[in-house]
């Protein structure tokens, strides 16, 4: 057989264009992700994670003493953290978008620019800044409350169990509200003006216009915003780390999955201080599964209910 009759299948030239990006993306994103799922079935010490233990890490997380107490605490807090964003951040975003979409409002560009500023700040900077503002000794927040005669409401905001997590979530909502605002705004601006004119002629009230025209048309965008909020918050870490610290004080009440993952898998849980990477990988895998299932559920909800017919 000569070389002539034996023809290699020709590799399309396009492969070479894709290859460099694919390699980096695969090696440093896809593989680590997959390997981390796999590592959750192993245990060991330090970087030597090679003893197969099946689902033992998961058993520990879900049922074993203090480990599971911390895990379920963080799990629950993450939902609270997410819920505050869904309710406060996204409602404000929708409200701002509705107000800004009206052409009669002067200074729209200025408002828009201001609302979006915090989204360009580093999360750590936002966190530290608000930590200073909420500080009970100097904190501007308490001073302002006093200035307007509400001094009785002054609190050590980040020192009270149950309050601190909500305050941190509100600060994070303050930072990110610009994103849903802009997404809703671009959806609203894409709605044809004819529709509003027709509604106007028919004498529709502004509530009718909102609920019958705007809401159905921006419903798919609500799905986008909900999914975005969900993925960002189940993955959050920086804001709690900056405002409260890696332990989610007081008494772990602001501990979320991100900080728990950091402590268990990377920094080492107090007082031992040695990371348990297998256990950490199990936490990461649970975050992954929750994200995956959550996104699927939200997609179906926002796709199927989008229209009346």
């Amino acid at each position, binding site marked *: 057989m000569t070389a002539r009759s034996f023809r290699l299948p020709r590799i399309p030239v*396009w*492969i070479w*264009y*894709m290859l460099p*990006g*694919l390699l*980096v*993306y695969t*090696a*440093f*994103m*896809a*593989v*680590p*992700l997959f*390997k981390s799922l796999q*590592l959750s079935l192993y245990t060991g010490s330090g*970087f030597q994670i090679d003893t197969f233990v099946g689902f033992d890490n998961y058993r520990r997380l879900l049922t074993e003493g203090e480990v599971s107490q911390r895990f379920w605490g963080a799990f629950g807090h993450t939902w609270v953290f997410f819920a505050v964003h869904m309710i406060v951040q996204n409602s404000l975003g929708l409200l*701002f978008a509705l*107000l800004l979409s*009206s052409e*009669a*409002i002067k200074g729209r560009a*200025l*408002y*828009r*620019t*201001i609302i*979006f*500023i915090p*989204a*360009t*700040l*580093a*999360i*750590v*900077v936002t966190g*530290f800044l*608000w930590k*200073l503002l909420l500080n009970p000794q*100097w904190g*501007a927040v308490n*001073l302002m409350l006093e200035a307007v005669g509400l001094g009785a409401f002054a609190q050590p905001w980040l020192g009270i169990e149950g309050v601190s997590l909500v305050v941190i979530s509100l600060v994070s909502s*303050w930072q990110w509200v*610009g*994103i849903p605002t*802009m997404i809703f705004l671009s959806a609203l601006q894409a709605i044809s003006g004819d529709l509003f004119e027709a509604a106007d002629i028919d004498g529709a009230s*502004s509530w009718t216009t909102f609920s019958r025209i705007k809401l159905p048309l921006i419903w798919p965008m609500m799905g*986008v915003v909900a*999914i975005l909020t969900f*993925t960002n918050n189940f993955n959050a*870490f920086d804001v709690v780390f*900056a405002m409260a610290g890696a332990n989610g004080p007081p008494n772990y009440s602001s501990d979320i999955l991100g900080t728990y993952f950091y402590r268990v*898998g*990377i920094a080492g849980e107090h007082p031992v201080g040695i990371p348990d990477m297998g256990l*950490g990988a199990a936490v*990461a895998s649970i975050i*992954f599964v929750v*994200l995956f299932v959550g*996104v699927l559920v939200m997609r179906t909800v926002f796709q199927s209910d989008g229209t009346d017919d």
Partner: protein
Amino acid sequence: MAAVQVRGRRIGSHIILSVWSILVLIPLWIMVINSFKSKLAIYRSPFGLPDQWTLDGYLSVFSRSSFPRYFFNSIAITTISIAGIIILASLAAYAIARWKSRVSTAVFLFFLAGMMIPIRIGSINLLMILRNLGLLDQLIGLLPIYIAMGMPIGVFVLTEFMRTVPPELTQSAYIDGAGDFRIFWQIVLPLTRPAMATVAIFNLVVLWNDLWFPLIFIRSESQRTLMLGVTRLFGQYQTDWTLILSTLTVATVPIVLLYVLMAKQFIAGLTAGAVKG
């Protein structure tokens, strides 16, 4: 009657939007204005302009600490990563946009999957990979991770954009005998500039502000990024308000300034991943 109602609603809108704007600006005002005051003055009058302007905070940020080093590190890793993302993503996007086949669709979807999945989940294994490569505690170790992180949004935005390049443009170049790469380099890339700006801005904000990866990979003073430096300084000088506020201001100003100058592009860039995904 109706006119009165409309006017009333307009005033209501202004009130809501102004109150929120004030809520956004006050913290930033307090941060910037107090960074020019002495520690005592911050306590005495936290809201007003300083009686005596001082640059002490800034001077000690830049002399006492390794801040200039952190600053330089952040600029270096951010720009090199963005350049890498744009080069690799535009090559891939060009192939995906031009090559109609099942393979290219699969590659496209493979990249898109990364938009939904936070790369942090893979951190444990990334730690091991960097350790095996001897890149732990090295600034350069962040580079491949940052490029991988930026690929999904880069490929997505650039592919969508390149699909809008009219085929007549590339076809006539073909007839003139230009190769695929020349068409890419001389015709498609220059047309793609707006999309590249979107990708660059998105990644600029994400990478400049990233704390997670420097925090878990980097220990040495000389390798720290700005955000990691901010975290450490905050721990070290908890009570030196002037210094802390100057630090936060310095870390924030470059991006916010850019944002104010190019608000439109920033908003487009930062919502790009969401709007079509």
